[in-house]
């Protein structure tokens, strides 16, 4: 069996999809009891934190892809704060935190040091939240892309500044309620027409690899990490990581919500090489955006006191635009 063989199952968030039913070489990195477990348990993340999940998935896969030779550089944010409460650390790999806005440059510095020392075996992963990545760290990230520094940078996008108490970021979607885009006034929540797509900005740098993923697609995420680690130069992965606290979702729903983001078309999952989209994950079962919005308290004002069909329709149009733009229904218009 070759590793590229398509695995025909769909994680449904229940016990139904057992990696254990597969041949060992086809199991996910997470299914391997001998995996390195880059981020050990005992950290202080909220229950059901998508970022904790995403970081472990990504780093375990990166470790496996590089034979355990990874140095991680972290921006300030939830992931950093909950993983290293002095005098403890959850990191099983060498890990460096410097500031909120400089993780890409610090990672580039680590890569430069390794290059100067001729250590081609050790790989560098930079990571940060959406705030650290799309806002304050964007200059450093763009510099890292532009120079082609040998860093795999991962953004864990929970669509707001969670560590400081859920304020808006440049990745906060329209209408979402945050502490600085309150659910009051005529257009409650984050305004339409603001913010940015960092995957598209990354692609504009024509770096070798850009991809998006969610914590709902474990295999897809791991495969993307392996592909990125197989390349050299500046590589970028943008992972959607729902935040139960900030989004107002049940801590058991993180994976389900991430899947709904993907299946509604609001969060397109794709892959790009040298600035061109090369692959998309088609919607397996298209869902209306309402299904995604309803379980989240940050969108509660769209449903109470009255249902804002106008706003929901506008969000649906945004999802439809993504679906058309990335060809997310390329093969079949699945019924929902």
């Amino acid at each position, binding site marked *: 069996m070759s590793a590229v063989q398509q695995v025909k199952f769909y994680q449904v968030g229940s016990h139904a999809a057992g990696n254990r039913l597969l041949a060992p070489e086809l199991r996910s990195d997470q299914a391997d009891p001998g995996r390195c477990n880059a981020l050990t348990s005992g950290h202080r993340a909220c229950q059901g934190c998508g970022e904790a999940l995403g970081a472990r998935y990504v780093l375990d896969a990166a470790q496996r892809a590089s034979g355990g030779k990874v140095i991680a550089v972290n921006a300030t944010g939830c992931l950093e704060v909950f993983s*290293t409460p002095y005098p403890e650390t959850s990191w099983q790999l060498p890990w460096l935190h410097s500031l909120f806005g400089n993780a890409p*440059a610090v990672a580039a510095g680590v890569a430069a040091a390794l290059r100067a020392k001729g250590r081609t075996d050790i790989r560098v992963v930079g990571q940060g939240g959406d705030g650290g990545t799309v806002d304050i760290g964007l200059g450093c990230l763009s510099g890292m892309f532009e120079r082609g520094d040998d860093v795999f940078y991962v953004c864990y996008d929970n669509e707001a500044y969670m560590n400081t108490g859920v304020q808006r970021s440049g990745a906060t979607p329209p209408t979402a309620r945050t502490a600085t885009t309150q659910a009051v006034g005529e257009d409650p929540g984050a305004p339409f027409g603001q913010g940015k797509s960092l995957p598209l900005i990354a692609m504009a740098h024509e770096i070798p690899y850009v991809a998006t993923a969610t914590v709902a697609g474990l295999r897809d995420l791991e495969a993307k990490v392996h592909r990125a680690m197989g390349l050299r130069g500046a590589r970028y992965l943008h992972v959607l990581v729902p935040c139960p606290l900030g989004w107002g979702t049940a801590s058991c729903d993180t994976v389900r919500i991430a899947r709904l983001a993907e299946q509604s078309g609001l969060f397109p999952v794709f892959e790009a090489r040298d600035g061109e989209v090369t692959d998309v994950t088609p919607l397996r079962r298209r869902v209306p955006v309402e299904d995604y919005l309803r379980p989240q308290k940050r969108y509660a004002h769209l449903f109470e006191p009255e249902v804002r069909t106008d706003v929901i329709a506008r969000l649906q149009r945004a999802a439809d635009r993504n679906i058309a733009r990335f060809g997310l229904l390329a093969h079949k218009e699945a019924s929902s």
Partner: protein
Amino acid sequence: MLKQTEGSRAVAETVAYCRPEVIAAYPISPQTHIVEELSRLVKSGVLGPCEYVNVESEFAAMSMCIGASAAGARTYTATASQGLLYMVEALYNASGLGLPIVMTVANRAIGAPINIWNDHSDTMSQRDSGWIQLYARDNQEAADLHPQAFRLAEELSLPVMVCMDGFVLTHAWERIEVPEQAQVDAFLPPYEPRQVLDPDEPVSIGAMVGPEAFTEVRYLAHAKQMRALEAIPDIAREFRQAFGRDSGGLIHPYRCEFADTIVVALGSVLGTVCDVVDEMREAGVRIGALGITSFRPFPLEAVRTVLGNAQRVVVLERALAVGIGGIVSANVRTALSGIRLDGHTVVAGLGGRPITKDSLHRLFTDAIAGRLGQLEFLDLDTELVERELARMARTRRSGPSAENILRDLGSNR
């Protein structure tokens, strides 16, 4: 090798002999010639293996140095003025993480109004950043301080700034003894990091620290700097043995024995000050000068010993602590606590204004005659500032003073 060369170039060559493995480069006057020359030295293979990285900002430059240093590479950058301020957040981080980065600062004023010429506003603003700060008196010392800075940084695990006056030193051509590679190699062993990012021995660096230990961590940062008070003279002594030159150290007293008046200063102005001291000594005036090389850590004991027996101290400040006066003098006052003597703060040479021998003669004579206030601005155009002050008193919309002053100067001509 003795050469007629530019200050920046001598520094760049000496830095190259220190074998940095990562250099982060971003241009700003008057520092540019240093990174330009280093780019040439790396590209032409004189210095290697070395990663010379052109970054997109000074914030990125210092951040890159943080990563490189934590990964175990000897790391260097250079900046000035706005560039130094642009990296401030990372500066504190580098020292907090105990990373032995060496940085040359080509001292320059800070805007607004924008001004590219020399004073010490930039580095003085970083006096509490946890970096060691060494100030060069001349280009020979500027070059010589670099191997010492790397030694110091790596022995103590602390970052070091070598401060050299912009243009006055960086762009001045002089006869400079540039060390040879073998000499530097003998003086400066390869960097052996205390704690390094290594997959074989994983550590977490940069953890979050709460109230239960933060004070202790800061105390230790202070204690480490205090250890530098011994390391700096030790290293300077070793340097003298190896290179035969007096460079570095904590302070440089000049004709301070039996001096009633002592002038304290940092950097290149010391040359002029010492000339004036010589002339006044010849005229029978009991005057001396005290150069401070290590501003951080501040050598309280050494300064106290030299100044303690004087009757008056004049501190020449190349920066202004707005709203209070002098920065260096506040530190000198700490050194002299309990000792009664006349103290004068003189703000001089801001934004590149020349400090002439004539002005200094007048200044020191006034000080000795008891005509000097506590805070003075050397060669201040009092008429000009009085006019602006009057305008400010007249109208609530006085506008930016620089523009008003320019208008006044224009209409006078």
